[in-house]
């Protein structure tokens, strides 16, 4: 039912199923919303607002005051992707990593946080022995942000920013953490733990 979910997930293709959000561990807590319906959305009904992957960042830039207002009221914004337009408070534009070997894609979890509880970083680095899915660069965080995960060279690929706004901003520089709900590895813990964290977070 519209407006009862904890997290609104902006979406570019509602006609196609998105398997990670259909998973029993997350489906009752998320609501996919057409990106272009954002201006009409009552954001006050959601604990979190997520935008990932191929989302239209030009549109988010044109409507950045809606995002900023939601954060000023204590909301949580989850972004996963390469920041290509400056719509997200505090976040720097994506910096691709110069890759010289697959070891450069190695992921380290560097801060304790509920969304990574029980997650083995090896499962983020490799899929079927192939590296490079989790992140290929970073969105530079602002001062005061807490880095949760980084690449082998220290590039911050997941960070949490509770300083720039009155709300909370979680940024992943890969395709997005909500995709991590399926599969047989500990990586599948991330999306349900992330949604639970957003749902239960007490507003300051």
């Amino acid at each position: 039912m519209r407006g009862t979910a904890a997290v609104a997930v902006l979406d570019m293709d509602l006609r196609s199923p998105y398997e990670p959000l259909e998973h029993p561990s997350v489906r009752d807590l998320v609501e996919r919303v057409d990106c272009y319906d954002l201006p009409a959305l009552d954001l006050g009904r959601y604990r979190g607002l997520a935008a990932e992957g191929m989302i239209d960042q030009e549109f988010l830039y044109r409507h950045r005051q809606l995002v900023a207002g939601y954060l000023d009221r204590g909301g949580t914004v989850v972004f996963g992707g390469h920041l290509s337009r400056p719509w997200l408070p505090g976040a720097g534009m994506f910096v691709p990593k110069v890759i010289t070997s697959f070891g450069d894609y190695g992921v380290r979890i560097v801060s304790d946080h509920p969304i990574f509880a029980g997650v083995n970083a090896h499962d983020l680095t490799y899929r079927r022995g192939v590296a490079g899915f989790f992140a290929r660069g970073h969105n530079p965080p602002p001062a005061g942000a807490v880095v949760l995960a980084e690449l082998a060279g220290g590039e911050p690929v997941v960070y949490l920013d509770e300083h720039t706004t009155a709300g909370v901003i979680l940024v992943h520089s890969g395709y997005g953490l909500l995709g991590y709900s399926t599969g047989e590895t500990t990586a599948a813990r991330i999306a349900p733990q992330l949604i639970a964290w957003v749902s239960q977070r007490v507003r300051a």
Partner: protein
Amino acid sequence: MIGALYGGSAAHHRALHEPKYRRLLDDILYLPDAANAGLGECTTLIVPERLHRGLLHRTAPAIRTLLDGGGTVVLFGEQPTAWLPGLRWTHRPTNWWWWLDGGPAPVAVAAPDHSLFDRLTLADMTWHIHGVFDPPPGAEVVLTAQDGSAVLYLDYVSTPGTLIVTSLDPLSHFGSYFMPATERFLDGFLPWLRGFTSGTARVVGKA
């Protein structure tokens, strides 16, 4: 004049603004604006994969007008609805791992003499496919899946213009810093398209 629709994603942003590609494009048209205001002076339009379907369908009348005027439209990626003439799409589950499993490559050459191969090799067109097409009779099939279904074809018959249709999705992968073959594809395809639309590329199927 070649234009490309831009859906606002980071991947499209990178692919279309990469200098070596941007200089081959005369205009970049942000899809929500094109859906309202049309396609400007473009006579050739590139339609990247994974655009918002609702907005794309609102742009369809302007794209039909371009084709009816003899223009050229390039469609990349999945086309689950027949929103332009001649489109018949079949989804295929994607085998992302054929190269790891030792399986056959996902695509094969159907027209080795086509002018596209002046600029591209099969390896430059090989990463994965998400589906295939059943092209209209008279269309020129250039690339197929291993079972012969069309992956890239040129359609001179469904409209007065030219539809170049492929299920390949190079822009989103190049734009996401994935899959080196997609960069080689764009390195060859975009200069070919300029030649094709200006009449300097060899045109095999067009009498």
